[in-house]
Each structure stands twice: as structure tokens, then as C-alpha cells.
């Protein structure tokens, strides 16, 4: 009946500078407990339908070079870093 909505509460941005890093792509897919990141043949791909499941654990941020992966809380405009 109704369409499923994605990206209502959380959005994720991955800098172009690291999006093509195969090691990072693999690492992000491994650490995220809710499968937001997919290793698409060595590129970091964000799985939109899982964004709202983000548990704010920061494992993706810790796995990446500082500032290259940003988790945005759409409900209050802040960002995890």
C-alpha cells in the first residue's frame, strides 16, 4: 500500500577521495552492524534502505581517515565525527 521511505533519520556521506579505496570498502562492509556499507567491486557503496537502521556506533568513522565518512542525523542537523 504505502511506499517504504529511506533516509528519513540518517544520511551518510563518503568523500570521493576515499570512495574508491578497495581496502576501505571492504573494511566498512565488515564493521557496520546494520549493513549500510557495501563493497561494490572495490568501491564504497551506501545501501540507502539500511540508512535509517544506523545505531550511531561510529565504527565506520573509526575505520576511515578523519573526516572522510560523515554520519548525519537528519532530525537535529548534527553530524557524527
Amino acid at each position, binding site marked *: *500500500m*504505502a*511506499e*517504504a*521511505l529511506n533516509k*528519513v*533519520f540518517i544520511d551518510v556521506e563518503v568523500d570521493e577521495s576515499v570512495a574508491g579505496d578497495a581496502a576501505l570498502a571492504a573494511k566498512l562492509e565488515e564493521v557496520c552492524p*546494520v549493513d549500510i556499507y557495501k563493497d561494490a567491486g572495490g568501491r564504497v557503496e551506501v545501501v540507502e534502505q539500511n540508512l*535509517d*537502521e544506523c*545505531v*550511531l556506533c561510529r565504527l565506520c568513522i573509526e575505520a576511515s581517515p578523519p573526516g572522510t565518512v560523515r554520519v548525519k*542525523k537528519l*532530525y*537535529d542537523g548534527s553530524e557524527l565525527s
Partner: protein
Amino acid sequence: MRFFEYEARKVVELAGVPVTKYGFCTTADEARKVAEEIGGPVVIKSQVLSGGRMKAGGVKFADTPDEAAEHAEAILKLEINGHMPRGVLVDPKAEIKQEYYAGVVWDGTAKKPLMLFSDMGGIDIEEVAESHPDHVGRGHVSNLMPIPDFEAKQVIAATGVTGSQLNRATPVLAKLARLFRDNDMTLAEINPLAELTDGSFVALDAHMEMENEAVGRQKALLRKQLEIAEEDTRETYEPSDFERHVAAIDAADHRGVIQGKDHGFEGNLGLVIGAGGGSLTLTDAVRSQGGKPANYSEIGGNPSVAKACGLAKEVLEKDGVEKIAVMMSIVSNTRVDIVARGVIKACLELGQDPGETIAIFRIPGAWEEEGFKILEKYGVEYCDRSVSMWEAANRAVTKIQGAPTA
């Protein structure tokens, strides 16, 4: 899980208890054949998961195979208390000298199975226990030790039964106790256990119930010997669409647990509540203050946003639901912000304003500060632990129908 009489008879038979030469039939012709084989007067008994078969006309006597077929035909079409029979049992009409009761139940206080025996069988054992207590023998059995025959013997002897009757009844009760334990039963009864005119003892009726949690490990009995299919769960009532949908959402995602029931509920306030004890408390609180819940539900463990959203949507889509109340007892394991996301998303996906649709959000506990941020953003009225579950229910009821009639 409940058993039909014909299945319960099989269970006691497998345990070595003497039974009659009964036949389970699904057509009038089969009934005729069994009656012919028995070669004497028979009883035709409806096989339904309901009591009161006699009164409803589901138990008939027949002197000839033709009569047996006739009665079987009629009984196979007879609905009893909303149940249609699976078939009929064709039983030789017994020459009974005396009827006894043998049963095993759980004693939750002693935490052991309890054997019961009475020489006043064929009637309600609870009535006998009340009116003729010295005609009911009781005795516990160990959960760990093998069950020796003498423990059954003691229970029977306490009713005054002696002689050959004592010696014949003893192994029946002992076997019943053993099968109760081995097959994870919550109830195992033979009533009546009949002493026939020739002195033999037979189970003329049997009633069994197995614990649902144990069904998974009783496959040999259920699937092989009784041939009961896995889908055949014998619930006390047919689940509604709402209940089935919620169960499906729960099964598809291992994160957290949700449950929904609406049997016997009719109202305009949908309840998205938890956890178990919290759900009971909140449902009472809503009703006591004049609210009309459309359903009962339980949220437990740490559900995903999708699961919380799925439950809320199912509740919102129920006929007659105008608003939902999202309330839980203090949570440690469930995340307040995740549930908030889920219920708000449910409203948005249905094109509804969360601030309007959610009458109140009361979930104190883990990640509540984050949850409050989300609720603020969407204009949802919420409260923290300083507002009791009773008060939160009050606010929900007031929102939907004005001041509550307490």
C-alpha cells in the same frame, strides 16, 4: 499443544497402557468396516478439540454396522462449539464394572509432576476432589529419578482400592507418569480408566496436552507416530490477519521481538507497547481509564527500526484505529531512539502526521535523550520516567476521547 482423543489413545497405547480395539475413521464407510471388525455394539465419538461432545450429540451408540455408518455420517457433519470434527472414533461398547480416574499434571508449587487417581472415574475430577477428597489419591514423582511402580501403587492405595484392581491399575498410572515426563506433557489423563466385567483394565478415553516449548524436541512422537504435520499447531483460536502479519514481520527479522494480538479487542486506540509485563500493565491502565484498545502488543529485546515500524503500521492499518499510544516500561535493552524512528516512519509511510497520530510516546530508558530529539523534531507528544505508565495511558485516552471515565 492439544491432542485429539484418538491421538491421546495412541500415545497411551504406545506407552503400554491397555486400550480398546478402537478405529479412527473419516468416512461413514470406514466406520461401518470398523464396526464389522469389532462385531458388537459400538460407540461413535466425534473427534474435536472441545468438551461437551455428549451434550452436543457428538457421542452415539450403535448396535449394527449400518447404524454405526449412519451415526458417523451425521457426526462427521456436526459442528461442536465452533469446531468441525477431524473424524470419528469407533469404539467397542464396553461392559464396564467400575470407572476410575488416572491423571498426571504439573504441580508448580512442588515443581514436580503430580499423579492423581480416583475410584470415582468418569466425572469431573475437580468435583470429586472437592466433594469426596478421600476418594482422590495424590503423589509427586521426581524429575530426575526413574519412576518406580510403587509410587503409583501408593497413590492408588490411598483411595482404598486393593486386590487385583490395585495390581492392574498400578502399572497404568506408572506408565502414564512416565509418558507425561518423557513426552513433555502438561496434562495426561485417562478418564475413565475402566475395569471391565472380565476384570481387565482399559483406557476408555484419554486426554493429553503437550507443552508448546517442547514440540520441537518431540518430533519422533508427533511426526512419525502420530503423523501430525508441522503446520498443525492446534491453537485455541484462528489467528487474525493482524496477528499473522505481525508474526511474519517478527519471523523475517531476528533483531528484537514483536507480537500482536487482537482477539477479543475492538477499539480506536492502537497500542504499540512493551515489554511483556509492561504490556499487561499498560493494557489494564488504558482500559481502567475508559480507553478502548484496538489490540494488544509486545515489543521486546532490541528491535530494528524496520521491525518497530512494521508493528506500528499493522496497528495503524487496523479498522477503526484513530491513534496509537507508544508506551513501555523502562527499557534497558530496547533503544528508545530506534523505536521512535520506527513508529514515526510508520506514520510517514502511511501519509499521516506523527504528531497527530501518536497520542503519546512514553518509553524511558536506554538512548532516551536521542529519542527525545527525534520526537521533538516530529512534534510527537512524549514524556519521561517521571510520568507513570498509568498517567501516560491517561494522556493517550484523553487525547483520543476527552477526559477519561475512571
